[in-house]
Every structure is written in C-alpha cells, then in structure tokens.
C-alpha cells in the first residue's frame, strides 16, 4: 500500500478522525447540503455570512475519509474569507485535485489533498463539502450534487 499514503496523508487521516467544526452552527444564516448519489454520502454545511464575508462555517454528515477531511479542511480555510476569496481558494483546490498541480505555494494544509488526483473516482469526494459551502454562501438554493457535469 505504497501509493495510499499519497492519498491518505496523515493530515487527512487526522481530519477524518477528528473533523474540525463538526457541529451545527447556531449563528448560521445559510445552510447548504451536498450529496453524492453514487455512494450515499451526505453533508450539511452551516455558514454564517456577514455581508460577503464567511464569518463562521461548520459541517455535519456522513462520508468517506476524503470527503470528511476535505470538508473539515474547508471549514478551517474558509472561515473569515470573503466569498471571492473562498472561490479563489476553491479554484486552486479544484485544479490541484484534478491535475495534481499545486497552483499556489501557499495551499498550506490543503496540499494534503493533492494525492486525490491519482484517484479520479475520489475527486468528487474531495469537492463535495466545498460545493455545498460555496452554494450556501452564494445563496444558491440547489443542493450540491456531485452529479453536475463540472465538479
């Protein structure tokens, strides 16, 4: 199981075991949900939006190590960001998990998700929580689903 440590880096295993901000957020004024109909993964994201800034964000749900860890990392990385900043971070993350290329030097702990690109079937796991969060923040009422043609 050599390559698996590319995918399941210690950061991932850690966030999977102890997901951060894994709770309902009482101050949330936006709620988003995402599901992966192919595997049954389900996620709910709570966003407290002040103006265009994500003051706070949390999540709950069931999913694999990748989706849980990625959602957990999402909450840590998006807290305090404006929607525009959040979208930029997601754009980099998306490129990283689809191509393996780390675009920004400064991806910090998100770089742990770079190994996902070697496992194409798992890319959707890594993006599920982000979709849900961005949809909620942008006020898109549609639940995120990994079935959209674009991830």
């Amino acid at each position, binding site marked *: 199981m050599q390559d698996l440590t590319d995918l399941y880096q210690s950061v991932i295993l850690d966030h999977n075991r102890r997901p951060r901000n894994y709770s309902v957020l009482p101050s949330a004024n936006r709620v988003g949900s995402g599901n992966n*109909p192919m*595997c049954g993964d389900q996620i709910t994201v709570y966003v407290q939006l002040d103006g265009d800034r994500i003051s706070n964000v949390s999540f709950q749900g069931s999913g694999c190590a990748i989706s849980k860890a990625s959602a957990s990392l999402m909450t840590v990385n998006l807290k305090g960001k404006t929607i525009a900043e959040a979208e930029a971070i997601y754009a980099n993350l998306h490129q990283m998990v689809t191509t393996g290329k780390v675009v920004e030097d400064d991806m910090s702990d998100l770089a742990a998700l770079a190994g996902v690109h070697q496992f*194409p*079937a*798992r890319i959707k796991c890594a993006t599920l929580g982000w979709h849900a969060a961005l949809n909620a923040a942008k006020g898109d009422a549609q639940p995120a*689903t990994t*079935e*959209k*043609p674009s991830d």
Partner: protein
Amino acid sequence: MNPAWQNLRADFPILNQQVNGQALVYLDNAATSQKPQCVIDALVNYYQRDNANVHRGIHTLSMRATFAYEAARERSAKFLNATEPGEIVFTAGTTDSINLVANAWGDKNLKAGDIILLTEMEHHSNMVPWQLLAQRTGAKLRYLPVVAGDTGLLDLTQLAQVLTPEVKIFAFTHVSNTLGVINPAAALCAAAKKVGAISVIDAAQSAGHMPIDVRAMDCDFLAVSGHKMCGPTGVGLLYGRKALLEAMPPYRGGGSMISNVEYFESKWAPAPQKFEAGTPNIADVIALARAMDYLDDLGREAIAQHDEKLAALAYARLASEIPGIRMLGPAHHRSGVISFDLPGVHAHDVVTMADQEGVALRGGHHCNQPLMRKLGLSSTSRASFYLYNTEAEIERLVATLQKIQKFFAG
C-alpha cells in the same frame, strides 16, 4: 487522396465473403451498415481488459470503464458539434431516442388542441411514437406533404400553411430511408422556432453519412442509431438542447438516474444521467465512439460525396439500362439510397433473385407504409450505398437486374 480511403474495404472483414457462390455485394446499408475491424476490436478490448459497471465503482476496472464511457459522450458531442457532453443521452437507437422525446418532453408539454407536425416521408419510428403521444394527450397529427410525382421532395410551398402556432413539435427526417431525399434541416428548424415549436430531427440515415452540426441546424433534438454508422447494434444517442433536457421529467426509472431515493418518492439526477436508467450499454457506447473516429478519419464530407456519386451513377444507369423501371427519389442532390420498382416483378422476387447473385438488396415498404400507399406501391426494391461500395458493384447491380428482368419476361 486521404490515405484512410485506400484499402478501405479491407477494414471490413465481412465484405470478403462469397454469397451463393458470388462475391458479396452489400447494398443494404440503409438497413444497417457493416463494421470496420477497429470497432470490433474496441468491443473485444473492452471485454478482455476493462469490463466493469460504470459510475458507481471506484476500483480500477470501473474507473477505466467509466472514463471510456464518459469519453464517448464527449466524442459524441464533438461528432455533432453539441455545446457540451451533457447534451448527449445514450439510448438503444433512433427509435428509442424518439420515444424518449415523445414521452419525456411530449407528455409534459402537450395538451388537447396542440399539433404535432410530421412529414409524409417519415419512417414508422418517427411516426408511431407521435401517434401514441397524440392518443395520450389529445394532441393531433398533421403532415407536411411530399410533392406529387416520384422525386419525393417535401412540398415546401405548403410549409407556412401547416406550420401554424398550434404546432408544438415538428419532427422530420433529415434523410429519407426510402427516397434518398435530403431535407433542408436548418431551414425547417428555423421555421419551427418561429412558431414556437420544438424541432426533432431523425438523423438515422444522415449521422454516419454527412457532417452534422446541431448548432448550425439549431435543432432541439436529434436522434441517431449507431448500427447505421459503422457502430454496433443496440446503441444510439439523443442530442437534446441542454435547457430542454434539464426541464424534462425522466423517461425510465431505475438505478443511476436518481439523486435520492426514498420508499415513496425520489429525486432525479441532472441530465443526461436522468435519462440513462440502469446499467448502460457500456461496451457498445465505447465502440460507437470508435466508429465516430473511423468516420472522421475518412471525413464525413468525403463520405457524403462518395455516396452521392454512387447514387447518381446508379440512378442514371438503372434509369437508362433497365427498360420500364420506375425510379423513386430525386436524380441528384441525394443520399446513397435508391428505391425503384421493376414492373411485373415484385420487390421480394427481385431481392431473392439478386441474392442468388450475391447482391444484397432490400425489398418492402421500408417502414414507410403510408408513403408507399401514397406512391401507389406496396413495396419497392432498394439499393443503398456506403463508404465501402464501388462503381464495380453498381456494374454488378445493373447486370443482376437485367438478368432478373429477363428471367421474368422469359
């Protein structure tokens, strides 16, 4: 000359055989085309290396199968110049595609008093689904006539009269499988749009024979069969304009077309998955994409020219060398489908006799019963050409028909 055209007959192993002691001359391409070895190989490779169920799997074989299946969707979108792969729904063929539109779009959007406009030259597969839809909804059918005589061209002078604002659907064939007529698809779609009708193109006879550009034609739906364009049997596709596909309810229910299922209700996946219930025809979809590569290597413009050249030659020779023959369809600007009536010899007898000479023709109503009646015929004999046919084969056709005529006169 494009090198892909050299030695092209060698790509089709089936052509290299004797039938009744004669080298096979396969002129039944409007019914189904033969398959190049690369398409057969695509099936073999898939089953020998990559076979697995798609979408739901994350092991290696399943990822390979899923990747190849979705790559075929991209290939198909490119083949038709669709805006995006999501506009391609894989189906079992043209008939299935048209039924999908009639059910999923039709049942939701049609009501009593609405009109479904067809043309008098439609194949049963582009007629019966609309008859069934009319029965379900109370909508009515109407037909754009074919001009009197044997050219079989649409009577466009009547278009304005039949394409009224009550028309909600205008479904027509791009190329007639009986007459070889090529209809002005873009103009018909534009006319439909003007009255607010959706356009549905039956491209069974055109997709493998000429360039198809759904954006240039500006159609709403377009139906294709794989088996008539060098692909396997049992697979085809439906192009649908994205916004229409998204607004449509599903067609069949089952696995893969859902986003959430509960015991008493379900939610659907977005298009195109919404329309692909159950395990799809994975191997044949992948092989169909290979057929598209094959056709584009030859060039569809070149194929169209080849078809037209053979058809014009055959038309001219039969008309002049077979006394009394009745030729149907136009003499020029046509596809490679030639229908004719040999007076005093029924089409069945023509086909049986031609088969004894190794020449494969088709005789019958060609799923065009009402048109046959209009032409005062119960059946015709049909020779239909494709990329591997040759002028020498037309020679064989002419000689065979002469022999048949002699036999029956004798």
